[in-house]
């Protein structure tokens, strides 16, 4: 088991986004959360990552996780190689292969501040790949990506699952993920 959420509730302000939500991810699983804006997709992902405390319920997350949020968390003053190296060193890995996988290896010496939104997104995905964490939590991973970038993201997810990794993602864009379970949040409680 990679992730288990049991009877989770999420209250934001005085608004109950969801309650009694339970799910479990095993090795190789992929789960896609969909739904309209504001129904709590990102909040659910942040709860799963341990970034947000749920109002109720329990979380089991035995292994390491890789978090891909809205922000890239890359230092604008450093080159792309240095910025990714910082995180890879924390995880005890190297980012080179992941950069090649996302098609940004040629940007290794370019300062992050000069990268486009899509290139930064690819870089953040490369950090996720390079982390070596078995569970990927991806919040709107396709935001800012072009068609080739989305294809590379799909390939990366496929390769990750082949090696026993799991993916839990929230998206409002169609993603090329095979055999993914879908969780629809409809905001009916709110």
């Amino acid at each position, binding site marked *: 088991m990679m992730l288990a959420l049991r009877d989770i509730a999420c209250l934001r302000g005085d608004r109950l986004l969801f309650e009694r939500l339970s799910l479990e991810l095993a090795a190789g699983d992929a789960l896609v959360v969909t739904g309209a804006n504001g129904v709590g997709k990102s909040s659910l992902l*942040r709860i799963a*990552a*341990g*970034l*947000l*405390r749920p109002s109720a319920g329990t979380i089991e997350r035995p292994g*390491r*996780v*890789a*978090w891909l*949020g*809205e*922000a*890239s*968390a*890359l*230092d*604008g*003053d450093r080159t792309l190689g240095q910025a990714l190296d*910082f*995180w890879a*060193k*924390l*995880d005890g890995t190297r980012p080179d292969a992941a950069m090649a996988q996302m098609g940004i290896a040629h940007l290794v010496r370019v300062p992050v501040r000069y990268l486009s939104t899509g290139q930064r997104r690819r870089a953040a995905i490369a950090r996720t790949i390079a982390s070596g964490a078995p569970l990927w*939590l991806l919040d709107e991973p396709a935001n800012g990506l072009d068609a080739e970038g989305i294809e590379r993201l799909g390939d990366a997810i496929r390769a990750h699952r082949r090696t026993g990794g799991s993916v839990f993602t929230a998206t409002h864009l169609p993603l090329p993920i095979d055999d993914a379970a879908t969780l629809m949040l409809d905001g009916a409680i709110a």
Partner: protein
Amino acid sequence: MIASLIRRDTLRGLRAAGLPVMFFLIAATLFPFAVGPDARVLTKAGGGMLWLAALLAALLPIERLVAPDIEAGVFDQFAARGIADEALAAAKIAAHWLSFGPTLMLAALPGAALLGLDESTLGKLEAGLAIGTPALAALGLTVAALTAGLRGGGALAGLVLLPLAIPLLIFGAGALDPDGAQALKLLASTALLLTFGAPFAAGAALRSHRD
């Protein structure tokens, strides 16, 4: 992980360390213009004035300490790796001090020469700054974490930090007196309290930004 964060923030802080140091030295240069060239007045008030300049110089980098990392999602990445916010706050305090504390102590040497401080006063000033600047860094980081993301956060940070730093200023300047040993001890105890308490307050503030 923590060592990497300290290293990254220290290098980043050192790149911008020129501004607080220049501010400190300019303030020391302007002081004789304000009170006149009387050497006795400068010697008597100069040490306290350098403490005040150090306090104000420590304010300058506050806006860049926490807010950019929150905006960039850096703290989320650390939290997802299971690093406690208190540990992150302690690392950032250490890095903040490393990037401005020793340089400010070095800048105090020409500052003291400009104001004609004697060797004994200079020694006490350096000892006081060595003890007091970690507490200034701790206060600065805590206030930066509390005010990050607020409109006018930089100005608000100054309004919050300066009153909290008054004990450091009183004991730091008091330690320069010939019988200032007690003030130095009080400065040390205040600095200990602030330096070791700040990571918990700053950590809670960092956590609140995620909710």
